[in-house]
């Protein structure tokens, strides 16, 4: 590359539902037409979230980089299939990242290694933990306060699922609740977040 853009400071720019959404959708649309610099801009605007999510799920920085890179290559390849009518560009990308990260932990990582790390990192200290990212954007604050209104079981179910990469059956076992309860808490926890954050399709 003859010109390399400065690496962004990592502050997430724009929530999936935020005001940045049309710009990201446009960048993805231009990428679909083969515009690599548009994709570079898309990367700069989303990579902190994508990498942060991969890192949180797979834990190992080298694996997180691989997962993130694979996800961006997939996003580039399937940019022609992105439909803004069905959701935001950031949401679409992060869905790809999450799926890849979860596939990675399930297939590669020994469950025991994950369990240890999880116990260290889980729950009440969450807010301090994520402060290490030190990019406490307004969006992140808004998400955190929404998460804080969940019941304890809802919050744990959602976090174990999304950040832990566990299946709902595993979450039921971890939380020592029946599978039906885990299923319901995962869903009603997310629905509550959706309503609080005003996500609509």
């Amino acid at each position, binding site marked *: *590359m003859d010109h390399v853009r400065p*690496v962004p*400071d*990592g502050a997430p720019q724009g*929530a*999936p*539902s935020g005001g940045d959404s049309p710009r990201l959708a446009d960048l993805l649309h231009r990428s*679909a037409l*083969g515009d*690599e610099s548009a*994709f570079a801009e898309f*990367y700069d605007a989303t*990579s902190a*979230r*994508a990498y942060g*999510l991969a*890192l*949180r799920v797979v834990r190992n920085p080298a694996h997180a*980089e691989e997962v*993130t*890179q694979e996800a*961006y*290559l997939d996003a*580039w*390849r399937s940019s*022609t299939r992105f*439909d803004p009518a*069905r*959701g*935001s560009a*950031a*949401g679409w990308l*992060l*869905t790809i990242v*999450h799926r890849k990260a979860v596939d990675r932990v*399930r297939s590669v990582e020994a469950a025991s290694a994950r369990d240890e790390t999880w116990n260290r990192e889980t729950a009440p200290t969450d807010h301090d933990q*994520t402060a290490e*990212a030190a*990019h406490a*954007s307004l*969006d*992140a604050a808004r*998400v955190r306060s929404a*998460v804080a209104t969940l019941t304890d079981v809802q919050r744990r179910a959602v976090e174990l*699922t*999304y*950040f832990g990469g566990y*299946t*709902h059956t595993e979450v039921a076992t971890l939380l020592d609740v029946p599978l039906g309860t885990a*299923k319901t808490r*995962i*869903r*009603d*926890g*997310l*629905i509550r*977040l*959706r309503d609080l954050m005003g*996500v609509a*399709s």
Partner: protein
Amino acid sequence: MSDLHKLTGAYAMDALDELERARFEQHLAQCDDCRAEVAELRETAALLSETVAVPPPASLRDSVLAGISQVRPLAPEVTTTATPTSTPTATPVATPQAAPARSGKPAGRRGWAPFLVAAALALFVGLGAMIVAPWADDDEVPRLTAAEQVLQAPDAEEVFLDLGEAGRATVVRSKSQDKAVIVTEDMVSAPEGKDYELWFQTPEDDMVPAGLMPDAPDQTVVLDGSAAEAVAVGITVEPEGGSEQPTSDPIALFDLTEAT
């Protein structure tokens, strides 16, 4: 509300195992409400990533940009009916030939050429087969397919598995023919972007790839490779195109030592 509808949250956060996911995706194809809810919940889940954002190393950007410069974005999905707001999850992909076919004669003629070549090849192969096996019709034995030969072998032994809502499957093995066949009924499709892969388990517990299963509910497939020594046949869900080694636990394992 059926139980399936409650899986939207778990599905949106990739918390279903492979079989549950396959089953739920079949449901999704028919349930508008669930599709809409999944879209919203995925969007919501993605917001959670705001709280864990970490800038990646600068080298990652270079690798990503170097990577994309070597790959073309996929051909777009072309829908025949223009109703983008109510598009179901799977939209038909137009064949490359579809567009030129509409635009008049010259393109139409060009479109024929590969077909003619294929027809000529088929004829050639047909002739070849006749020359190689001129005696095949003489002894009046009905010619059996490879699968039929196994299924009808005198030493055929079988293991049946009921996979619940995922369908039913039977593995039949003939030691004398060194072949095995799998017959499925009502088998659910593999999850999006995945294939079912077949494996022979050797007496040493090695897993040997035995081919991919075509995506159809009812099928009869001859497994690739030697079957006589195998102690079991497994099916796993693998990334599209299959793997050298299983990357997940089998969704079905047919214990051939208990075959009858």
